[in-house]
Structures are given as structure tokens and as C-alpha cells.
């Protein structure tokens, strides 16, 4: 198709057969997509479906293994983010890339400051350009204000100006709405519409289907690295959109378990963290796995942190075994019988330069100490016992933990937790970065824990995992409980779960 002339319709950008693999994962599998001039094109899919990878390829952060990108009628190779920007492709990431200590103007022209022939900055000119951009977008900001003094939405506007200052023709917005209030969102939408009317193509990534229906012209669904289809928004309903997003069977890798659920061990009532969580109420019973699901930014992590004492809660009560627990420190949480197995093993889990024994015993070190001195024999025996019980595969007890596989590292972390005699396990993304065989072993371990009466709160972004492992599933959406699905009455479907997570009220929720 010819792209010459003043075409307002027609294709501005095309992906042809784009494939990208990371070690062990096919992130994108022959993706074909096209984007028209001046359209708002929404990209939806589960966590990890490949949306971000695709956008990183478009903005030059990653290179595709194969396939081509046709931009403006020519095949292009996007070498790096700078080149992408110069070509008119700008991306606004979830985490803003602004420099907090610099002014609005400095940020907008970062790395492209107008300079005089002698090499001096022409600051006045830059400021003037910023004023022009603001007039265009109908924004009112002080060009000299420091970014750190701005609100989140104002910072986002600076990002948008930064993108437009290079005459962006394609603007990619990755989850722009997550930090915004409804009013701010309306403002953002009106700016998106004005960009659209000026012929800018906006690629809008969001988990919030309502937003997609409000702002998008077309929607492309990506699942497991494949394009499920591109649809004009008026031909879609929320139900069939969710259907496209899910469309897969639960693999049968989850162990059977005797469902011996006991008494309530923990009650959380009306828990709130300002701006992140509101009125969270639920209970956890002995011998059960309570899955905690929700999209990125739904408040899952914050809830877990508030429970284990890593962040303070603003209000609400937590009762464990009938005893009210105040805002506690992590140390307090451990003595109350909590244990926390974080998602990022490298950052929050393992102590890289230490051996397996030392990694296993760190949280319960006191047990192996007499007047401050470590009884190394006692320590070794205790660790050895756990390591044998977990069937951790290692050449020696004194192997450095970084030499173990991800699955075995995860087992060490579970062993570490077990040594503190916990009653409530809080496990985040238990199988992230672990291969399928080892996943099964972790699932089995989790089931062994519940059989011995432990209660488990499991956060997971993998829908099949949540559905396969949980006795009940609590779904969060924008910091609130969107619904609790009981898996015993009937197994929930991915559709039900996802509908709750994306804020499309399904028959189940109140």
C-alpha cells in the first residue's frame, strides 16, 4: 500500500513475522501486526504474554531474532532507543525515565539540548519550545519546576512532551493509567485524542479493559507470544475479548491433594494502605492454599508486604489464631509464625556468596547459637535434614547457592522458612524462572506443607498455576478485592478470574 501523500488512513507501521526467543522461552512467535496513521491501537494480553517484549523491539531495546519491521513504507532496522526516537517512535515506560532533580525543560530536552554554535546551551529556546508543546496539549506547568515536585500525572505529561518534542509519529504508552486517578485519566484520554487528531499513532497497553473500550480504535490480543487477532473495538464485547486473552487449557501438572482444610488461622479485616490498598478483608485457613491473583499494579505485592511486616499498613486488623497483630516488623512477623518467600530470588532470596547450609539457617540462626557462638555441627545437621527432606540436588552441603538451579534455590528458600516453624507461608511467584519439571516438585512441596496443616497465601501471575494450586482464589483489582473464587464448589475458569482481574464485573462478584 502506498504511504505517500497526506494519507490519514493506511498503514504506518507493520510487523512481519517477528520472532524473539529468550533462553528457554519463545517470547514472540511470528507476530504480524499493523498500525494505521492516527489510530489508538490497544495491545492486551495476560502478564508475560509478550506485549512488552514487542514494544521493546519497536523501541530498539531488543533486536528480533527474525522478521522485519516496515515503517513508513520502508523496511527499517531499529538499532537502539535513540535511533527509534529520532525516527519518531517514542515510548513511555511504566517506570518513568525522568531525572527527578532536573526541571521540566531539562527533562524534555535531555540529551538533545539546543546548543548555540559555540556549544553553549540555549536554554531560552528550549523553554520556549516547552511552552509551545504545553499550549498544544493544553497543559499548564512551570517549565522550570523540578520533576520531583510534580504529581504523577504531571510527570507523565512531561514524558509525553518529551516524546512529542522529537515529533513522535508513534507513541507507545505502557500501562499509563496504573498510577492515575479517574480525573487524571480523563485528562490523559483527552490528550491522547488530541494527539490522534494530529495524526500521531498511539499504541496503548493496558490491563484495564474499560479503558481499552473507551479510548482504542482497534485492539490486538497477544497470548503466549502469538497474535490472537486484531479487532475493531466496536466489534468486540468484553466477554469475547477476555475469551481471546485466555483461550487455553490448564495443563495437568498439578498434584492431587487431600482437601483437609481446618480452622481459620488468619483473618484480615479492612486492611488499607493509602493509595494502594483499600478495605481488604479475607481469611486464611489451615491446610489451604489461598491464591492471590490480579494484574500488575493491582496491589498484590503491597498486600503481601503489609501482611509480613515489610511495609506498614494504614488501617485494618490482622488476627492470627485469635490474637490481634499490630503493625509489626519482619522480625515480629517471623515470631508470629509468618514466613515470606519472595518472588525475586536473586534480589530478595538467596545470599549469593554463601553456601547452602548458611543460606538455609540464616533466618533461624538463633536456634543454633549459644551465647552468640554458632554451634556449627548443630547447624549443619539441621540444614542437612531439611535439604534431604526437600530432595535438593547438590554435590555438597557447602556448595555456594548460586551454583544451584533455580528450582533447587527455591527449595533452599522453603527449607529456610521451614526452620522457623512457620504456620503461615506467604509465597510470591513460587515458580518464576523455574523449568517445568522442577515446577512440579515445588507444587508437590507446597501440597506437602498444606497436608501438614500449614496455611499458604500464594501470589502468582500465572493463571494456570493459580487455578491449579489454589483452594480459593482472591482476585485484586486496583487495590480492592474484586472477588474470592471458591475452587471447591466448582473449578473456576481463566475467564472468570481474568474478568475480575481486569475489572469487568462478572456474575460472581458483588
Amino acid at each position, binding site marked *: 500500500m502506498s504511504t505517500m501523500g497526506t494519507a490519514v488512513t493506511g498503514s504506518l507501521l507493520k510487523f512481519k513475522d517477528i520472532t524473539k526467543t529468550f533462553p528457554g522461552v519463545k517470547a514472540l512467535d511470528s507476530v504480524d501486526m499493523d498500525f494505521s496513521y492516527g489510530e489508538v491501537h490497544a495491545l492486551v494480553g495476560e502478564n508475560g504474554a509478550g506485549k512488552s517484549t514487542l514494544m521493546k523491539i519497536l523501541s530498539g531495546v531488543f533486536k528480533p531474532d527474525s522478521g522485519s519491521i516496515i515503517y513508513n513504507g520502508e523496511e527499517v532496522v531499529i538499532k537502539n532507543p535513540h535511533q527509534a526516537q529520532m525516527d519518531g517512535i517514542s515510548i513511555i515506560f511504566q517506570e518513568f525515565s525522568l531525572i527527578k532533580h532536573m526541571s521540566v525543560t531539562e527533562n524534555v530536552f535531555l540529551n538533545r539540548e539546543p546548543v548555540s554554535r559555540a556549544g553553549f546551551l540555549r536554554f531560552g529556546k528550549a523553554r520556549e519550545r516547552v511552552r509551545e508543546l504545553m499550549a498544544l496539549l493544553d497543559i499548564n506547568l512551570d517549565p522550570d519546576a523540578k520533576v520531583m515536585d510534580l504529581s504523577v500525572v504531571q510527570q507523565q505529561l512531561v514524558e509525553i512532551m518529551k516524546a512529542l518534542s522529537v515529533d513522535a509519529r508513534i507513541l507507545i504508552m505502557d500501562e499509563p493509567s496504573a498510577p492515575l486517578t479517574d480525573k487524571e485519566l480523563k485528562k490523559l484520554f483527552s490528550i491522547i485524542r488530541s494527539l490522534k487528531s494530529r495524526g500521531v499513532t498511539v499504541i496503548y497497553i493496558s490491563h484495564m479493559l474499560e479503558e481499552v473500550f473507551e479510548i482504542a480504535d482497534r485492539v490486538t490480543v497477544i497470548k503466549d507470544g502469538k497474535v490472537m487477532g486484531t479487532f475493531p473495538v466496536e466489534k468486540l464485547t468484553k466477554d469475547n475479548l477476555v475469551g481471546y486473552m485466555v483461550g487455553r487449557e490448564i495443563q495437568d501438572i498439578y498434584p492431587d491433594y487431600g482437601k483437609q482444610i481446618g480452622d481459620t488461622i488468619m483473618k484480615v479485616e479492612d486492611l488499607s494502605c493509602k493509595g494502594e490498598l483499600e478495605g481488604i478483608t479475607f481469611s486464611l485457613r489451615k491446610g489451604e492454599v489461598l491464591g492471590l491473583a490480579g494484574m500488575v499494579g493491582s496491589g498484590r505485592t503491597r498486600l503481601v508486604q503489609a501482611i509480613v511486616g515489610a511495609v506498614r499498613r494504614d488501617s485494618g486488623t490482622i488476627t492470627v489464631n485469635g490474637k490481634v497483630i499490630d503493625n509489626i516488623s519482619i522480625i515480629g512477623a517471623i515470631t508470629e509464625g509468618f514466613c515470606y518467600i*519472595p518472588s525475586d530470588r536473586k*534480589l530478595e*532470596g*538467596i*545470599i549469593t556468596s554463601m553456601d547452602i547450609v548458611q543460606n538455609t539457617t540464616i533466618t533461624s*540462626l*538463633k536456634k543454633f547459637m549459644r551465647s552468640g557462638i*554458632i554451634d556449627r555441627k548443630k547447624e549443619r545437621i539441621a540444614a542437612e535434614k531439611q535439604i534431604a527432606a526437600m530432595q535438593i540436588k547438590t554435590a555438597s552441603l*557447602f556448595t555456594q547457592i548460586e551454583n544451584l538451579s533455580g528450582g533447587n534455590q527455591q527449595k533452599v528458600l522453603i527449607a529456610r522458612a521451614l526452620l522457623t516453624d512457620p504456620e503461615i507461608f506467604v509465597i510470591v511467584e513460587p515458580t518464576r524462572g523455574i523449568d517445568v519439571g522442577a515446577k512440579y516438585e515445588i507444587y508437590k512441596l507446597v501440597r506437602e506443607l498444606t497436608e501438614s496443616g500449614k496455611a499458604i497465601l500464594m501470589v502468582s501471575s500465572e493463571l494456570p498455576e493459580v487455578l491449579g494450586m489454589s483452594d480459593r482464589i482472591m482476585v485484586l483489582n486496583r487495590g480492592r478485592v474484586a472477588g474470592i473464587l471458591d475452587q471447591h464448589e466448582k473449578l473456576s475458569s481463566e475467564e472468570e478470574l481474568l474478568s475480575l482481574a481486569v475489572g469487568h464485573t462478572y456474575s460472581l462478584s458483588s
Partner: protein
Amino acid sequence: MRKIQEKLQRSGISIGLIVTFLVIILMAIAVNIVKGVNFFSLNNLLNVVRNYSMIAIAAMGQTFVIISGGLDLSVSAVMASSNVVAATYMTSNGLIFPVLLLCLALAALVGMFNGYLVTKRNVPPFIGTLGTSIVINGLRMIWTNGMPRGAIPDGLKNVCTSNFLNMIPNLFMMFVFIAIWYWFLLARTGYGRRLYVVGNNPRVAILSGVRKDRIIITAYIISAVSAAFVGILIGGYTGIADNWAGKGYDLDSVAFAVLGGAVIGGGAGSIQGTILGGFILLMITNLALLASLPLESQLVIKGLIIVTALGITARKR
């Protein structure tokens, strides 16, 4: 073979360090033969050992701070100050012990302040301890008017200059005693284990219920108290009050630890490593001296060794 490697790894001393040590012994023999000066002469060895003992005590304190992920640049300032305070108040032999305790207590306060800056106020250790050292140096200069008063009592001089059983310098004996103590603290106690965890991954430390700030502050206290003790030993050894006693020892102590395998940034290091690393550094400078290289070239050699050692550890990370 793997067993041996594991043993070594757990012993806290790298193969590289041992090889370097052996190479330097060979160099010493070579200098011996070529230049005809004897590194191994009793006189020279005693000199090296006395000097070494004093810096090494401070360096072992520094090792704690480096393992915690920090750096203590107030070592020299604390040394000079305790030296001057000791000279001022140790007016008789009977006062040696009480004044020693006073100096150590003052140093503990300095260490606490350093630790407070680093943990509670998030000041980068480099800047925080440098600032502390400037303040202490300034206070001392105001207090002494630039001219330290007092004298070192004979009792202290005797202890610091004489030899145990007429053979081994008392200074070295003190060093050995403290070394065993520190080694035990680091390698066998809960404190030591937690210190490594804090330096290696502060986030894991917190999530494991380790009282991170307390651990770090204690490390700075250990370093400051060690430095203050050395300041007094220097006084006893030289016999005079010196406003700049121990000048340059802060960087020397860092060099000892880093050569011994401590990693700037935390999580790695050991007492035995620092002991060996320091000995290597001091031997080399002493060999250069014996080979009658000018002072300037000695400095160049020392600097190159430190830079190389840092380059190697940095690449490993």
C-alpha cells in the same frame, strides 16, 4: 580437588593470595642474594613486624566495616586523637589503664556516629566517615592548639618497645591476641554470620529478620575502637604525642583488607585474608626499601599493588 577448592573457599583465603605470598618470599630471597641485604635478618624482621602489627590491628577493624558494605576513612583521625588524649592524661603509670579505657570509649562514640550516618541517614560511607575524620581532626587541633601536650609514661613505652620472652615483640603478641579474637567473632559467631549477610544482600538480611542497622553500627564501632587502640600503641612505640599519629593508615588499612580478599561493596573478606594481604603489602614495601629504591618508587609500587588487587576483585564481581 573440588574438596580442596571448597576448603580454601571456606577458609577465606584465595589461591591467588597464597601464590602471591610465595612469590614475594622468593623475591625476598632474590633481593637477599642480589643486593646482599637480608630481609630475614632479625633486626629487619622485628621492625617490619612491629610496624605491621599496629597497622594490621586497625586493618582488621576496617575489615568488619568493609564486609558490612562500608568504608571507614576516619581511622587515622581516631588514631591521632587517641594518641594525643593518651599523652595528655596518662600522667603516671597508674593512669595508663583508665585513660586507655577512656580513649576506647570515645572511639566507640565516633564509631557509633559513623554507623548512625551510614544506616539511619543513608550517608554514603565514604563521605560520612571522611566528614567525621575532618571534624575530629579539627577538634583535636583546636584542643591542642596545634601542639600536643603531655608525654607518654614509661610503663607504656616499655610495653610497646620490649619483647615477649626477649624474642617476640609485645606489639606482635597483642596483634595475635586481637586477631584470634576478631577471627572468632567473624567466623564463629552469629554476629559475624549476619555481618556477611548484611554486606552481601541487605534486602535478604532484613527479610530474614536480621537487625541490619545494629550490625552495621557495631562494625563501625569495632573499627574505631581498634584504631584508637593503635593510636595508643603508636604513642608507646614512638614515645611522643603526635597530632598526626597514624597518618595514612586509613588507606593502608583499606589496602590490607582489599589485598586480603575483602570486596569494597561488602559481603566478602576475612581476618586471615587481611592478615596475609597486609603482610604481602608490607613485605613488598620493605623489600623496596632494602633494595634501596627511592621512597617515590616505593610509593609507586605500593599504589600499583593496590590498584591491581582492586582491579582483580572488581572483575570477579
